[in-house]
């Protein structure tokens, strides 16, 4: 893992001191809320429905045990004993007091963490593949490049006041596990015909009120030009992006209104100026960052394959968990364990301080001290010997973290919604709780198979509803919650935005509507091998609409 150098330490310490002073001045009345609000937002502090909320950055979703223990400690000491992992691989604390936040930031800096650029119109936390450095289908680890982007974008003077927030994601495997095509810039590591590493650059993706799938800007940018090309894109965006209307300020709108070809010309012209300058990455620098991310030494442990088979046959629940929650590691004697934060009736993405401590202990003991946060709001142990799976499972079972549901209908992505968020129009969590309860039977979930169900409590789409195979968007209509249903969205490879089924459903109807969609799928799929999204692509919307609505368009 990357460790802070002197520059990192100095700038985080300086920011903690600066913001502590600002909080003191605000509490003393030397600053108005109007003056203070942009400052607190630049430090990840929001004011939500019930309290302040602190969003802490987890760069590219990678954590050490020590860092997770610190987050557990903060949840316990300054909050209400739990934290919420988000779809940007960050963590949010829902109940901190403003007066405590300087102390929290001080504590975070002790473990090389902070809340800088988790809000505001700047380059946000760079996200990446939560299986990076471990996945069997990976051809290059994206995290060194995410780290280079983090260092370059942190407090970047030119890009601290962009027209709107700017999100970047990087992947380096055959499967896009970071939804790069719904980012302002999506980077896909690849090799050209000579074996040289570089990136395909996708631009202009995003969700929110105007969802768009990113378009390919350039098929191959050599790795040494990563910062030059990224700078060229954001510089052109900073120059032309709209500042008169926040709803039209993202780069996706600029591309839509200006045209990709015209912008490409401008970006390429800017890149031609930049590419031989100081932004060119020396190989020595790339190598130095890469060294932080080398795969840990993993001893061969082939004897455990037989034992694992025996343990699985002896414990059906363990077998189900291995089947759903353990992915292939590049080392055949190891697996990647996803710890579900989606128990039946639970809050997607929430973990208690006790659970965080237990997971930190497991990571230290069994996963080379490494952890990941996925944008699906789960935790990941990236390097687990197959022989250690049973003891990990037993520990998770005793901690309420052994749900065997990764990739199933109860593995729901959901934003905090109206239970916490001041922007929300409707609740997300309660809908997620009801759906996970309705589909709590593991057999039934397995019958339904691979599916992604996402819920957002407002049009800002923090719950990624546009790219859920089934998406639910909560709105407010005549003082009540109403839920729009979308079908056919998809993140990752073959990215697509879901299509609205028709009229929305009340909070009493939405779970039944989801069940109708599922039953329709089960009745028309060609076999249990045909997933929901494949079936939807084959049969289209009409059959689902027919099942959901009567001839007048009213919900059945």
């Amino acid at each position, binding site marked *: 893992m990357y460790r802070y150098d002197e520059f990192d330490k100095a700038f985080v310490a300086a920011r903690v001191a600066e913001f502590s002073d600002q909080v003191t001045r*605000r*509490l*003393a*009345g030397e600053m108005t*809320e109007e003056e203070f609000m942009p400052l607190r937002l630049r430090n990840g502090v929001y*004011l*939500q*429905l*019930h*309290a*302040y909320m602190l969003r802490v950055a987890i760069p590219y979703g990678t954590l050490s045990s020590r860092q997770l223990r610190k987050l557990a400690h903060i949840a*316990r000491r300054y909050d*209400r*004993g*739990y934290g919420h992992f988000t779809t940007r691989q960050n963590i949010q604390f829902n109940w901190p*007091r*403003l*007066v405590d936040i300087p102390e929290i930031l001080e504590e975070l800096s002790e473990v090389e963490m902070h809340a800088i650029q988790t809000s505001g119109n700047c380059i946000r936390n760079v996200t990446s593949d939560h299986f990076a450095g471990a996945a069997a289908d990976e051809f290059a680890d994206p995290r060194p490049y995410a780290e280079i982007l983090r260092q370059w974008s942190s407090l970047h003077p030119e890009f601290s006041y962009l027209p709107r927030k700017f999100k970047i994601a990087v992947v380096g495997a055959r499967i896009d596990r970071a939804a790069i095509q719904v980012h302002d810039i999506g980077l896909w590591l690849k090799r050209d015909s000579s074996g040289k590493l570089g990136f395909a650059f996708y631009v202009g993706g995003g969700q929110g009120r105007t969802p768009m799938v990113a378009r390919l800007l350039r098929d191959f940018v050599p790795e040494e030009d990563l910062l030059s090309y990224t700078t060229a894109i954001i510089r052109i965006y900073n120059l032309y992006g709209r500042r008169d209307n926040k709803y039209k300020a993202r780069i996706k709108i600029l591309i839509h209104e200006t045209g990709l070809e015209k912008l490409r010309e401008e970006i390429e012209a800017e890149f031609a100026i930049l590419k031989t300058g100081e932004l060119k990455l020396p190989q020595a620098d790339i190598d130095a960052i890469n060294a932080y991310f080398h795969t840990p030494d993993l001893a061969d442990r082939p004897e455990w394959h037989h034992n694992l088979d025996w343990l699985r046959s002896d414990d059906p629940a363990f077998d189900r968990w291995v089947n759903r929650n353990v992915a292939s590691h590049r080392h055949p004697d190891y697996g990647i364990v996803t710890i579900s934060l989606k128990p039946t*009736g*639970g*809050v997607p993405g*929430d973990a*208690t*301080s*006790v659970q965080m401590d237990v997971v930190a202990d497991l990571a230290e003991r069994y996963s080379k001290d490494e952890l990941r946060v996925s944008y699906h709001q789960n935790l990941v142990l990236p390097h687990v010997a197959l022989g250690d799976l049973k003891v990990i499972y037993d520990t998770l079972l005793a901690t309420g973290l052994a749900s065997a549901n990764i990739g199933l209908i109860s593995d729901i992505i959901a934003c905090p919604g*109206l*239970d*916490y968020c001041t922007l*929300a*129009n409707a*609740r997300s*969590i*309660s809908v997620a*709780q009801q759906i996970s309860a309705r589909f709590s039977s593991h057999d039934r979930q397995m019958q339904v198979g691979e599916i992604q169900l996402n819920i957002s409590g407002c049009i800002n789409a923090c719950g990624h509803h546009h790219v859920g195979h089934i998406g639910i968007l909560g709105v*407010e209509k005549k*003082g*009540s*919650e109403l839920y729009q249903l979308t079908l056919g969205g998809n993140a990752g490879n073959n990215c697509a935005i879901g299509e609205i089924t028709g009229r929305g459903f009340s909070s009493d109807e939405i779970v039944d509507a989801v069940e109708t969609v599922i039953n329709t799928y089960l009745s028309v799929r060609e076999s249990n091998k045909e997933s929901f999204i494949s079936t939807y692509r084959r049969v289209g919307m009409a059959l689902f609409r027919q099942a959901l609505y009567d001839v007048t368009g009213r919900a059945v």
Partner: protein
Amino acid sequence: MSLKILTASRLTDGHPVWYCTDGGWSKEFSNAAVADTSLACLLFERVAKQAIEKNEIVDATLVDVETRDGRLVALRLRERIRANGPTITSYAQNQSI
């Protein structure tokens, strides 16, 4: 006019508070003072301005309410959730608070 109450967030911890009849700010929604005239609303707005200037509160706003069975109820769900806390508290209470 519809009945209105004055609410805000407390500066130090962001906790929702409601202006009440004794001239202070309460953490209990049920203690909220009710304005039923435009003059009373003007008075609430002046109170809010003073409290903001004294650094007691932020984000003051008037909220529509009605009385049901002798109890005050906010018309919007958002304000009811602000008053009563997340609707998922049973889960949150299971955490090691």
